[in-house]
């Protein structure tokens, strides 16, 4: 019996913080809001006991949108 294939996520491409990189990123545009930008703090105290992951959990938690705005009853 063949061993099950383990699907691993590929590592992200490493980008250098150069003006041309920013220009390239700024030119990208998706048809729908599907582009995720995640900023992560990695100071020494954030790395202790993987605190950066705890801080990032609510940020990367795919919850549905906040309560949708509904006009007050009686409003046009």
């Amino acid at each position: 019996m063949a061993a099950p294939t383990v699907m691993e996520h590929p590592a992200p491409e490493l980008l250098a913080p150069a003006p041309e990189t920013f220009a390239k990123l700024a030119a990208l545009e998706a048809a729908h809001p599907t582009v995720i930008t995640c900023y992560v703090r990695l100071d020494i105290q954030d790395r202790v006991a993987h605190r950066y992951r705890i801080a990032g959990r609510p940020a990367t938690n795919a919850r549905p949108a906040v309560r949708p705005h509904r006009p007050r009853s009686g409003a046009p």
Partner: protein
Amino acid sequence: MHDLPSGHTDREAVHRDLERLAAFLANSGHLPHSPGMALFACEALDLFAMMPLPRVARTRAVLDVRPRVAEASAVAPEFAPILLAALDRTHARFFRVTVDDVEELPCLTMPAHRGGKFHSDRGDAPGWGEHDYHNRIREERHRHAAAVADRLSELLAQDTWLGIVLSGPARATSDQTRFLPGVLQQRVLHSAHINPTAVSEQKIREVGLAARDAARMHRTSARVEEYETALGTGWAVSGARATLRALANGQARLLLVRAGLVGNGFRCAASGRLTMAATDCRGEGEPVPVRDIVDEAIEDAMRQRVEVVVVDDLSVGGKLDGLGAVLRFRSPARAKVAPAAASRPRSRARARR
């Protein structure tokens, strides 16, 4: 921030991207050595990239139609390397410390010290008085410090640096500070105790990170002090509502945010202004709810090239009421309100008569 897309396919794509991000964050071995990073992910655009950053205001994720690069581009100049000098009485090594790399530069070689007048090969002893011996040592220390100061000046002129870190025995670093010219003294970020002859790359990296942290703390306390002074003279606003208004008017020069602050809010569809309540958008389009108004305020500020400072230390930001801003110009409306308020009692008095 946009909410999750309504289409099932798009929502599934976002979920897969979030899984990719979570899987990457789960392995701490993949993380860069830098104090922050930005991750960009979009399946539709075949985008999954990571950018190490020298500083991140706060950990957050944003969903939009395009990558949000405002903060990354704003902090890019801070990528400048640190010039670290590891020195003692006789040695001086120089390191170029970037956010994720350490490179050793040519060290300073001192010529052989002057021997005695008649017995130059005897190396000071025996036969010399103790006073002369110590005087020689002091003189050599001073020459060494002057040579190090010269070398630091040369290196600083050759490249763009964030600042200088002096490391070594306390006496050597304090001596060296006194020998630096005024311009160079202002560029000293930090000093640390290390042994220059037996220092590892890891230790140099740690000292570099600590120096960046110290520089950030110093910058934060200086900005908070500036904010408190400006608040007293009417050149700053305090509180979320006033700060968001100043940001929308392009008045803000410096935005201060208390760490950990979160809250829902709205963005007016027509004007793009952020507000705390939906009713504040009257006449400015439909209020669109945003998940975290603080994240949005930071994004807006970064787009306007406003400096953003997140105050972690509660003892530093005593007068900061959640959000605050130092202004570029004062609102003309405010100036108009003052005379009207001053004339109000007079008109009331007239009415009473």
